[in-house]
């Protein structure tokens, strides 16, 4: 495994190819935009997508736990796809979540999809959190005072080479701000060249593209 370490506002962070962020000094793992039960949300309108996205997402969280053994885990908002999503988790998935709660402290940041997080999630609930030189919040802010880690935009990057085209999730960063890829199994993405993302970075920024077992830095 080739680690991708980057510096955001003086803090050294590791970008994991699963889309998680690892902060070695704090022994902290961050997951953005997990969108639990996005699949079952569509059943209301008659689309019966495989109802397993939450399980897959939680299994991937658990795999990251196995590798990094975090002391602290953070969900960076939009962890639940809609206000009713937490009611649709079944016993198996609640047990998966409870298990993760026993393996690290958790902080749940609320997002626009889950402004009112259920009280039974393991750990604390917050709107934003500042640690060291970094602020963690769901939506990137317009003004940036210090280093910011955010989600919300689901960045993706399309790489074209040799007549082939590959579209993957990515981190986007200019060294001051980092926008994380969405972690949920059914979450799509927004191209890094989209104005909503570009406007966050006054200078050049890089896309850190998620590969199969490593992260590749490419021009955004």
């Amino acid at each position, binding site marked *: 495994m080739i680690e991708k370490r980057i510096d955001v506002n003086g803090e050294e962070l590791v970008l994991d190819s699963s889309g998680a962020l690892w902060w070695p000094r704090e022994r902290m793992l961050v997951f953005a935009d997990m969108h639990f039960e996005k*699949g*079952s949300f569509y*059943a*209301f*309108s*008659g*689309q*019966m*997508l*495989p*109802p*397993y*996205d939450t*399980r*897959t997402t939680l299994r991937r969280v658990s795999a990251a736990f196995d590798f990094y053994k975090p002391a602290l885990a953070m969900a960076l908002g939009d962890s639940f796809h809609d206000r009713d999503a937490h009611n*649709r988790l*079944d016993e198996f998935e609640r047990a998966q979540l409870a298990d993760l709660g026993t393996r690290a402290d958790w902080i749940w940041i609320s997002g626009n999809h889950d402004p009112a997080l259920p009280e039974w999630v393991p750990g604390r609930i917050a709107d934003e959190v500042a640690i060291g030189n970094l602020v963690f919040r769901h939506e990137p802010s317009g003004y940036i005072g210090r280093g910011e880690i955010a989600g919300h935009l689901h960045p993706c990057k*399309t*790489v*074209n*080479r*040799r*007549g*082939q*085209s*590959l*579209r*993957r999730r990515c981190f986007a960063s200019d060294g001051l701000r980092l926008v994380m890829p969405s972690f949920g*199994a*059914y*979450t*799509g*993405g927004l191209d890094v060249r989209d104005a909503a993302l570009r406007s966050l970075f006054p200078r050049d920024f*890089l896309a850190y*593209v998620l*590969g*199969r077992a490593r992260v*590749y*830095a*490419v*021009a955004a």
Partner: protein
Amino acid sequence: MLQPVFPAPALPAVFADWFAARGWAPRPHQLALIAHAQAGESALLIAPTGGGKTLAGFLPSLIDLAATPKRARKPALHTLYISPLKALAVDVARNLETPVAEMSLPIRVETRTGDTPPGRRQRQKYSPPDILLTTPEQFALLLSSRDARRFFENVQAVVLDELHAMHNSKRGDLLSLGLARLQELAPKHRRIGLSATVADPKPLQRYLVPQPMSGEALSALVIGKPGANPKISILASESYVPWAGHLARHTMPEILAAMKRATTTLVFVNTRSQAERTFQELWRINDDNLPIALHHGSLAPEQRRKVEAAMTRGALRGVVCTSTLDLGIDWGAVDQVICVGAPKGAARLVQRIGRANHRLDEPSNAMLVPSNRFEVLECEAARDAVLAGELDGEPLRQGGMDVLTQHILGAACSAPFDADALFKDVKSASPYRNLSRTDFDAAVDFVATGGYALKRYDRYAKLRKTPEGLWRVAHPRIAQQYRLNVGVIIEDPMIDIRLQSKGRPTGAGGRVLGKLEEYFVENLTPGDTFVFSGDVLRFEGIHENAAFVTRTNDPEAQIPSYNGGKFPLSTFLAMRVREMLSDPRQWKRLPHPVGEWLEIQQLRSKIPDSSELLVETFPRGSKNYLVCYPFEGRLAHQTLGMLITRRLERLRMRPLGFVANEYALAVWALRDMSGVDMDALFSEDMLGDDLDAWLAESALYKRTFRNCAIVSGLIERRGIGTEKTGRQVTFSSDLIYDVLREHEPDHILLRATYEDAATGLLDIGRLSGALTRVKGNITARALERVSPLAVPALLEISKEMVAGEAHEDILHEAEESLVAEAMAVD
């Protein structure tokens, strides 16, 4: 030839007079169909074009309708005609007007296609015409309406046109299920199938009639008098035959000269990009300004209609076209067909040749233009087969499960159904005659709640059981959704190409030239040039779901390799090519460069006999090559390439890449592969775990899954009032695929995907057959340098490496280019 078993029926006087007035006599096959119809029997008519085939299909209905005065019958649909092309339905309706008008028959003929205005559709429902001409999709829509029974219950006859082109496809599956439903609504109707010559008529005869629970039923068979044998020439130079490529640029002057000699010529090519390039090359030398047009599936519909209308008027001397004109309206003026490139199959060639000369007794004129050495062999083999009257039969597919789920939902939209009765109906359709009850129930379960082991969607079920035990749709909205998404034709996501004036900002206005695959456009960067719609265009950028281009004079255009028309070489023709190759006596009739090429191959390596697999290894440059020649078509070779590179990787040969064409597969690696146990390398067990591991991440396989997911309605193409762009659908279907595969690898949709891929994009079925065939019959040759036979494959390496399979290497390269940029010291 099969003669009618009845005495030839006497034509009613009005019909006999009409034939006589035109100076015609009814043809034997027309009379045979009338006899079968009067006995209430279904029949398949096989006849060449120009044999009065369409009229034969309608004569029994016209006679029947003419016998009953209009006042004596209530307005009801009598005959339903279904064609794969809506243009054909419209054209046939127009042609049918002539006898109806000339005999003053009290018969109303109407069409119903996607273009029919809503007002007329509405009226057709309440006041149906006597004869309705339509497409399989419109037929499915009509069947799903709540008054389907009233609309169809009086149907006496169904005419299925171009049945050979429909029966063995997903559209054929959908149509067969529709016919099974019609059988229930109008149990007494009879069917007529119209078909071009096929290798084996049995599957079509079976398709035409309801199948019993055990055994099989066949329709009657009527074979029309065959046309005169065609005259087929092959244009191949004695001095120069290219090693590879598909453009045949060196033959353009001769093609143009042949066009000048004929009245009207159809120039067939295999892909849209070849059509563009051929059209360009012809016009480059067209000093007499011969009116030559271009026709392919990416051009804007209005533009295609314009070309077709000009053909009908006789205003054109030639059209460069793809398979879009394989079927369709008869143009009497066409007297020559030129096929550039590989024929791919004998039946396809017959079909294309048949587009010239619609008078039966005169031979059609055709010229084959091979564009490289292997194609010379293929053209010779195809000509032999056509002249010997031998055609390639394609393997019969089983009815698709995704199509079945669509049909089940359609049935529920029409009226609550009883599962036992519907199962029986479905089994009577020949593509589904082997369907098990378990699979049928799984399909119903899928429609109702997604068919998952985890029962989470019961309260959102689309189908619910009534107290009487019937399945009904849970909400009218579901029926509305179904009607928006009916049909099984899934096109690659396309994007409009708009032409804007130079110097104007991208996105400002511009006329639509046509559509191109989104993935092709996404690979362009502003400034790239490509040929489209007969012009060299410069890509300016994408703006709001359209690609904007300007005209340019750049002669060195980057040619689009956009998809379309990539049929693989047929198994039958491949066999004939292999036989010709292995018989040196036959080389004498080949052009000199081709004969010489084979002789040196024999000297330097080996000419494989018709059942063995030759595997050559040799070093070249800094790499080591392995080239094998299965002759199983590009798709099967690509799959083989994927699988054996995995194995070579495990053997630590460090494979770097591969390239596949119709005849061969070439793999290159860092290590010398001559010591590899070839029997083990090509062993059938690669279709087990290796295949499974590859399918988990194959982009081609995911594309197949996407199609099945759309056809089955798991993913909707169109919501009420919206159409999802292809990109949205593609992206989410990949995510769904990953999750479903992790939790329910045996889900009905994954099984449907596998069955589709096995005959479609991955051609696993054919690969499996080939591996079985060559078992114990593999000849390995370790050579010092490249062999003559290997050259064509190696020449293709610089082009697209592995079509459609994006490799992670490109991320590597992208990162390296960033590093290089960063580290450059200017």
